[in-house]
């Protein structure tokens, strides 16, 4: 795609576009926060706590989106062996795990005033918790090998297997949840979204995406450079030998 599987071209691309993504995310998240915190109404049921949604929901989106990026990049790396795809998958994982963690923490902060408890086994939150563990497994596996190539390949296979499983996990958790849901919690899912809430939500969503892109470009760049340094070192070792 646009020759970006070539590390050198990717570095140029990242250098060129990185600042723009950073600027866009600052503007989008800034305005999203302003609309979300000051210029939108409080929910008639939940009051001011509804504003947690502007962070909680986009981070849930990004948690899932980053996993898909990771899985697709892994599949590309497995089939076509593009080194940049490996770096993208590896770089995406901690970002996605971070977003998922933010989603879980904000979910707990939201749950305390809403349900009176930090954690309920709500279907969405439970799925996000499992997703978080899928990320942890991926990162643990990628880092468990002395040979970085091996780790990347093993983790890529795991990402694809995990991705196939995510819908099944989601389906089973939803089914399980309807089975066990106590009556008091049923209504307290997402509040019906007022149009004035939609604007900040969308701004934050797009802002989180560009923020993710900024960080991903930056991480992939440093991965490429690290690989180069390693190769130069190797060449030196073998040159002397």
């Amino acid at each position, binding site marked *: 795609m646009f020759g970006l599987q070539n590390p050198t071209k990717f570095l140029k691309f990242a250098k060129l576009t990185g600042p723009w993504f950073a600027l866009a995310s600052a503007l989008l998240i800034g305005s999203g926060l302003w609309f979300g915190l000051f210029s939108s109404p409080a929910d008639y049921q939940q009051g001011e706590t509804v504003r947690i949604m502007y962070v909680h929901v986009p981070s849930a989106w990004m948690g899932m989106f980053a996993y898909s990026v990771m899985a697709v990049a892994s599949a590309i790396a497995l089939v076509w062996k593009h080194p940049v795809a490996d770096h993208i998958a590896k770089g995406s994982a901690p970002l996605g795990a971070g977003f998922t963690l933010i989603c879980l923490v904000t979910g707990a902060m939201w749950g305390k005033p809403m349900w009176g408890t930090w954690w309920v086994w709500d279907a969405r939150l439970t799925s996000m918790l*499992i997703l978080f*563990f899928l990320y*942890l497994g991926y990162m643990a*596996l990628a880092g*468990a090998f002395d040979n970085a190539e091996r780790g990347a390949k*093993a983790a890529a296979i*795991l990402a694809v*297997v995990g991705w196939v499983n995510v819908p099944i996990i989601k389906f089973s958790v939803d*089914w*399980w949840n309807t089975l066990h849901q106590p009556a008091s919690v049923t209504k307290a899912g997402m509040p019906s979204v007022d149009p004035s809430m939609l604007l900040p939500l969308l701004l934050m969503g797009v802002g989180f995406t560009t923020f993710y892109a900024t960080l991903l470009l930056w991480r992939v760049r440093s991965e490429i450079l690290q690989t180069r340094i390693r190769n130069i070192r190797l060449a030196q070792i073998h040159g002397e030998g």
Partner: protein
Amino acid sequence: MIQYWELLKRELRLALRQGSDSMMVVGFFVLAVILFPFGIGPEPGVLARVAPGLVWVNALLAAMLSLDRLYQGDYEDGSLELLILTPAPLEVLVAAKVTAHWLTTGLPLMAAAPLLAIFLNLSAYDLGVLLLTLAVGTPTLSLIGSVGAALVLGARRGGVLISLLVLPLFIPVLIFAVGAVDAAQHAFPWTGQLAILGAILLGAVPLGLYASAAALRQAAE
């Protein structure tokens, strides 16, 4: 496929002669379940209520115990390379390995379940449903577990790592298996849950075989 039967025979022979693995798995399974009455009290109603979940969670953990040896021995002594070079699809050989794993862990777990049913005050009918879920569910555990076992070959701390990789993927099996027995306990229909377990197994066969074979190939590189 002659290779399938030959490898299966060899695996069973190895398990038989090296002994104790299956016994240890069953021992762990029974012992871990027996711990719970000490933890939550021996009230028969409570035990029967949590029995399906207890048995299944411990079956998951027990099935995982023996996973890290599934390919490790062959990886270390060079057998894995020769297996890959065998003139048969690697998926077929993985299928033999998975079958052997199920015969030496899944099946013994099922054999131990009636004993646990007595300890946990489970009725004969519920035990029947529990056995059905174990019969359909534990092969999935062996298939998914095989992927995990193949992925961690050559990794540091492989044994602990497998649980982190594999346990989240076991959750759907756990949910529907326990759901079926729960439903049976409350005299609700449970065949739907069992059918979903069967569907998961059917999906896990190609996924488990292909992914394990891919993982083994990259491990041998």
